[in-house]
């Protein structure tokens, strides 16, 4: 993180990501919250790019911006009473405590850990390496995840089937 461009990009993206994430909690309108969530996802994708993880960055946009947020939007619009407001909830106190504990843990771990500084330059091509790792070293977790997704898909079809 020595050159100016990376530092400037990092701080801009960090402000966008964290600011948008805060707005997700703060805004009253749930659809606005989803749109801020999308902005936050895009910021995270930008951060991946500064880490020269191009494949992960693009996958972040493809999956989170293109699919997950659309799923959230569908869920929002198909549930009654939703899309009106970010209503008051009795879980506010516990949620705050949980968030504070989580933040403290992550912060503490980040400070305490003795991070390795990468000596090599950026990866030349990450996609091929990821593909090789998924189908070679990590083939079992990969297959388990595939079976899980297949089961979820079959389950969804069974649930909406009418007869």
């Amino acid at each position, binding site marked *: 993180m020595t050159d100016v461009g990376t530092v400037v990009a990092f701080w801009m993206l960090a402000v966008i990501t964290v600011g948008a994430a805060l707005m997700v909690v703060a805004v009253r309108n749930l659809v606005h919250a989803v749109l801020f969530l*999308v902005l936050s996802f895009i910021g995270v994708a930008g951060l991946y790019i500064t880490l020269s993880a191009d494949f992960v960055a693009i996958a972040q946009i493809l999956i989170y911006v293109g699919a997950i947020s659309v799923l959230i939007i569908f869920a929002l619009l198909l549930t009654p009473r939703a899309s009106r407001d970010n209503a008051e909830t009795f879980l506010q106190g516990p949620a705050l405590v949980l968030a504070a504990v989580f933040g403290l843990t992550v912060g503490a771990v980040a400070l305490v850990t003795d991070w390795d500084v990468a000596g090599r330059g950026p990866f030349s091509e990450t996609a091929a390496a990821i593909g090789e790792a998924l189908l070679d070293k990590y083939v079992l977790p990969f297959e388990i995840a595939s079976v899980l997704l297949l089961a979820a898909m079959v389950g969804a079809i069974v649930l909406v089937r009418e007869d």
Partner: protein
Amino acid sequence: MPLFLAQWWDLRDLGNAAGAFLEWLGDWGPDWLPYTVSAIVGCLAIVLFLVPSQFVFAWAERRLIGRIQSRLGPNRVGPFGLLQTVADTIKLLTKEAITTRNADRWVFWLAPVVVLVPSVVVFAVLPFGEGMIVADLNVGVLFLAAVGSVNAIVVFMAGWSSNNKFALLGAMREVAMLISYEIPQVLALLGVVIFTNTMSLGGIVRWQDHYNTWLLFLQPLAVVVYLIAGSVEINRTPTDIAEAESEIVAGYHTEYSGIKFGFFYAGEYFGGFAIAAIVATLYLGGWSLWGLEEWVPGWIIFLAKLYAVFWLFMWMRGTLPRLRIDQLMGFAWKFLLPLTLINIFVVGLEVLLWQENDLAAGVVLPAFAVTNLVLAVVLTVAWARLLGHARPGLRPRRARLMQELGAIVYGQES
């Protein structure tokens, strides 16, 4: 490419001039200057190509569809009605851009601005010539898919913020279409990636140039699937259920007027150019044309291919009637998806055969081309017959989700 001189005055590839200028800039200024300047120059070049193309094609499309449908088309403003687009633009600029009282003000304003972003950004990774590429990403093909998927959010923003039932229905239809057609679209692109063994678009064009072929011949099925899915993504007429005039006024941009509507209108053309450019790059060999690129600038070849593909879209718009939403949705899941899956399987087998046995490309590629063409025809016909002959009990009784999204399923109105 031995004959490319890499001199700044070699106009066969404008990348040479830009590269020389940036090198000079790098010698003279600080490190970050060439990057910034190249980004700005790239953006300007893309916009300078898109806006005039849109002006010309907005006129050409109306004339062409007029001819197809035995009408005159615009012929009053200027010679052959050439100035019609200029007149229309002035009209759009001077009209009031109404914001309805119950609209969600911020999102309503933001949507027409953001709608241009995905289709313009696509051009950043497309090679106009051998060196004329703003960013030759290693994950270019994935980038195309990712940027295309962002469209759904923009359309939803426009439709939801209008606070109008037609706008919301149009937006939900479009989102449903986009997430359905994204799958066959990406699977169609995967065949290209398996053949070329790279996701960089510059690399894919170089592969086609090296083997002196177009992926169109190796992937006939995928090209057709991609064209159909692309036509859904930019919702032009055979698949424009998101703004079907006879059903839901104008879909997600019903409430937009003036220049804000103009942005959606331009966005539709930019999206069309983007899809046409992707087809030209991935399947038609981009800037290469069997040696002709030594004499004719590569960017002219690329633009010619792009406009030819766009002309195909205009032809489709002029001749084909609009599909019903449940037909279109079923087509994606029951027809395109299985065919693209089989296509990928076959491509994988072929590449495995080719590389394991170390066969000569000159023998193998024509054989693959013939095999894939036969396979495409046989599969399409067989699958269509299979679906058409399915017993009535196997067909869905009513398109449930479709009705909830606002479609009228004929014969089952009750």
